[in-house]
């Protein structure tokens, strides 16, 4: 326990601990769409409890990268291990990895024909075999955590975008994932709703969740990330602690990107 909290206190400068199995390990991963190379020899290691922000220009492969981690996208070459389980196309391993990871999408992807509560209990009941009562308790616990327990009986269409995204986070948490993947969770939101979602994510980060976030929210990145991973044209071009990345980007491409984003 003390080791873990020290690691967090020292923040980004701490190297992933070698004796611990990393949360994510990618080695020379390639992903092609026809002739197009979406991931080009990507190496990435994420320690347990680490918070990574992935950024880069549009089309640089950020979504592809995190979608390969839970096998929603299938990588073509290279190795991916999640909590020590290799994504080698064996159904059993894919299932293990998906159970270890939760994902939050830009467009929420809540099930529109189910209430908020039904959205949250479906996987715990059908995948983990929980009783309905247990699953509801669990769901209410996480809905309370994302501060919308009072919306449990509503349908997603009756909620604001920010509320829907918080439900999506709660729904993912109900499977008690060890790693959370976020793909631009605030990009589809009106500006006034971005904050409530980022606050929820910060809280999750404080609790020690391993997180990989694709986001353009640089304030969030500075505050929460242990490390920024900058991608361009399918490659991981640069990885650094936020201070270092923002003050002193090494690559020309990252400088141009930051100039553009900050104006």
């Amino acid at each position: 326990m003390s080791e873990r909290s020290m690691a967090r206190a020292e923040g980004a400068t701490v190297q992933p601990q070698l004796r611990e199995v990393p949360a994510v390990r990618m080695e020379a991963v390639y992903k092609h769409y026809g002739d197009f190379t979406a991931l080009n020899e990507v190496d990435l290691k994420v320690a347990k409890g680490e918070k990574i922000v992935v950024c880069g220009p549009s089309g640089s492969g950020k979504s592809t990268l995190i979608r390969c981690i839970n096998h929603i996208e299938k990588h073509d070459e290279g190795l991916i291990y999640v909590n020590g389980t290799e994504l080698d196309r064996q159904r059993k391993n894919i299932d293990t990895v998906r159970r270890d990871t939760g994902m939050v999408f830009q467009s929420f992807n809540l099930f529109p024909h189910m209430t908020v509560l039904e959205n949250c209990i479906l996987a715990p009941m059908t995948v983990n075999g929980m009783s309905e009562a247990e699953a509801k308790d669990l769901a209410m616990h996480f809905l309370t955590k994302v501060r919308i327990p009072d919306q449990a009986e509503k349908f997603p269409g009756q909620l604001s975008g920010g509320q829907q995204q918080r439900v999506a986070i709660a729904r993912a948490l109900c499977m008690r994932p060890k790693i959370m993947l976020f793909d631009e969770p605030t990009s589809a939101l009106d500006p006034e709703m971005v904050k409530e979602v980022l606050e929820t994510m910060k809280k999750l980060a404080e609790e020690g969740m391993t997180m990989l976030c694709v986001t353009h929210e640089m304030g969030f990145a500075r505050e929460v990330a242990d490390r920024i991973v900058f991608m361009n044209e399918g490659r991981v071009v640069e990885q650094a602690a936020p201070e270092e990345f923002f003050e002193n980007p090494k690559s020309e491409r990252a400088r141009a990107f930051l100039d553009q984003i900050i104006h």
Partner: protein
Amino acid sequence: MSHFSPTAAVSYFFNYFLMKGVLVTIGLTVAAVVGGLILGMGIALLRMSSNPVLAGAARFYIWFFRGTPLLIQLVVIYSGLPQLGIKFSVITCALVGLILNEAAYLAEIVRSGFMAVSVGQREAAWALSLSPWVTFRRVTLPQAFRLMIPPLGNSINSLLKATSLASVISVEELMRRSDMLMQEHFQILEVYAAATAYYLILTSVWDAVQRRLEKHFGRSSAAKTRRVAASPPVAQASVEARA
């Protein structure tokens, strides 16, 4: 002799012989819908499969049965197949023809319903490690079904009327029995007025059922559909604004 006897028309409407024809029409329709849906779902699945041979076979089937008149299909099954030594009873011929034909239409309706459920829904199900069966049964099917109800309703309305073609191969449904009464009494308008009234009643009842179904399954989703449809452009705009 220009004359129309309303009382005769009413008496044909309550004619027991004609009423039994109505029951046959209803029976044919129900059986063709059920059979057509089962076969149609199978064909839709093949059509969506990644195997080009299976998908091609399904596509051919749909092309063939939607591209030829039901009347020819019925006549070929009834009078043509015996030439090859394949012989069914009249009612079986009608059912086979109606089911094969209806399946082609329903396959396309089922397929477009499933295609219209966004991939994001399936991805969310995968990310939650839902099994393929639960994903189908609880996530995609209910949403696809809601989208299928309006075209399904139209197709069933057409089918209800198309069963009258079975009269040509001597199935004694509503149309055939009207013809028989007409030939017996020569009260053409009166007999067909009764038959018309029955068809209108049947299609109207079905319309009402369809509206109830739409209302029931649309209940929770109306607001959501609008919001989801609206969100991708918003996303794009904010990304662009940021870049």
